């Protein structure tokens, strides 16, 4: 169970650009839930993920995971149980290192980074196997530098790396937004498969209303730091793109985009 309680967050406090993003924002997410989050620009979607991951601090309020208050916990400690994929494919991988080296780093998450060999040779076959399931031909490119791969290939690799180890939360921050439609589709399908297999609690921010409707068992629409639509279970299943499109257009017009 992940809970955000009475979150307050101001940007640029005390200046003319002061923006109040969250004012008493509350959210609780059950274990194993797959939450899709949509919303206008500046509605607080990404800020919410950053608050959960500890990338930005809150002015007031609490972040609670399984009844433990983690509000003051450092970001890198929180990430020990979080897998995260960003919009920018470059953020989830190391471009100057090879696919094999990248996978090795991800494989060592939580096991400590001491003076043992960086790559466990015995695991190479397993990596190859994992990559071959992606159908991108990456299994033959283990020694290729990740910087030489396409955005879609890098994002798929980033997703694989984020979910390689047992994690409690998967945080997806518009992870298909920078990809072409066909690649986005492949990455999204893979995401659905991984979440299903691992039964990991997932929060996915997306600009694609169709993905938000098709995937996940809870849908959140955010606007000006509030969840204006929050449906789960049967209600969520019944939602069609058309149902939320009207509301989405309305809030988007208000914001001028």
């Amino acid at each position, binding site marked *: 169970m992940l809970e955000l309680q009475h979150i307050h967050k101001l940007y640029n406090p005390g200046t003319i650009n002061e923006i109040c993003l969250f004012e008493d924002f509350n959210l609780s997410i059950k274990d194993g839930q797959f939450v899709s989050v949509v919303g206008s620009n500046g509605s607080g979607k990404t800020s919410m993920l950053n608050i959960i991951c500890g990338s930005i601090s809150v002015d007031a309020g609490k972040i609670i995971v399984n009844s433990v208050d983690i509000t003051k916990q*450092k*970001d*890198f*400690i929180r*990430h*020990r149980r*979080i*897998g*995260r994929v*960003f919009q920018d494919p*470059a*953020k*989830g*991988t*190391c*471009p*100057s*290192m090879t696919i094999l*080296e990248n996978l*090795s*780093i*991800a494989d*060592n*998450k*939580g096991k*400590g*980074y*001491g*003076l*043992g*060999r*960086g*790559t466990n040779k015995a695991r190479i076959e397993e990596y190859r196997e994992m990559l071959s399931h992606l159908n991108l031909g990456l299994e033959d490119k283990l020694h290729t530098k990740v910087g030489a791969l396409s955005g879609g290939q890098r994002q798929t690799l980033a997703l694989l790396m*984020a979910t390689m180890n047992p994690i409690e939360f998967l945080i997806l921050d518009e992870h298909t937004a920078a990809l072409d439609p066909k690649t986005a589709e492949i990455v999204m399908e893979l995401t659905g498969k991984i979440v299903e297999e691992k039964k990991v609690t997932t929060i996915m921010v997306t600009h694609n209303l169709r993905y938000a409707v098709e995937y996940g068992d809870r849908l959140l629409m955010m606007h000006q730091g509030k969840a204006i639509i929050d449906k789960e279970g049967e209600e969520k299943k019944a939602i069609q793109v058309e149902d939320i499109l009207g509301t989405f257009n309305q809030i988007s017009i208000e914001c001028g985009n």
Partner: protein
Amino acid sequence: MTLLLSVLEQGMIYAVMALGIYITYTILDFPDLTVDGSFPLGAALSAVLITKGVNPILTLLIAFGAGAVAGMLTGIIHVKLKVRDLLSGIIMMTALYTVNLRIAGRANVPIYNMTTLFDNGLVKGIFKGSLAAFSNVVIILLITVIMKLLLDWYMNTKSGYLLRAVGDNETIVTSMGVDKGIVKIIGLAIANGLVSLSGCLFAQQQRYFDISMGTGTMVIGLASVIIGISLLRKASFLQVTTRVIIGSIIYKACVALAIKLGMPSSDLKLITAVLFLVILVIGMDRSKRKKVA
């Protein structure tokens, strides 16, 4: 012949320092000016310890340790106190000037006729007669190769992978649940340890310590790294660390050539700087990478 040997000797001594700068500049993307202080730090320690009759091999270890502490402090100033990278290095470099003077006791310490890495019973026993001229170069080659192999080994450990990752993409280190600041501090410590060890070697080879020895360390190291990485790009069959060592030798050869062609040796630092500029510009032309600048 003497010129060639002296180029090889000094080129390879500076190569150890250049390996350190390779870590900070290329891997960590951190312009670390601490090196202008940690190079003479190693030299000062070397001179004082040799004078006291300490085992020369032990002086190398002590110099590495002291340099590592200096690098660690730069890292802590940058990471924990959130001072900009360039400024953190400048602060440490300035502070080290006094530290080095205090260690050495005065601005210049000669160590002629003492037991050093290059002057000891064992070396005299092995290199006899006409071989004696080669003793320095062989010893330096040995130490440089050992340092290179150690660095290569480290870069392939789990910890070394993280070091490479942090310069590439800090976010991924956080994603792996590791404090990226600590990784940077480790990188700076290893880098300055190498630089200080190089200074220690330099003092013993030159048989003196001088407080101004460190001026331009950064420039010499950067020039070597850029020659190794940009200009020797075609030689990609060689490991990067090997290329940096070759780069350092080439750079030293260019400086030696300039002096041979009639420049007075008092112009050394000017030659160093101008040559660096030339290499920087050539490096930029040939590779479109922005990072070179």
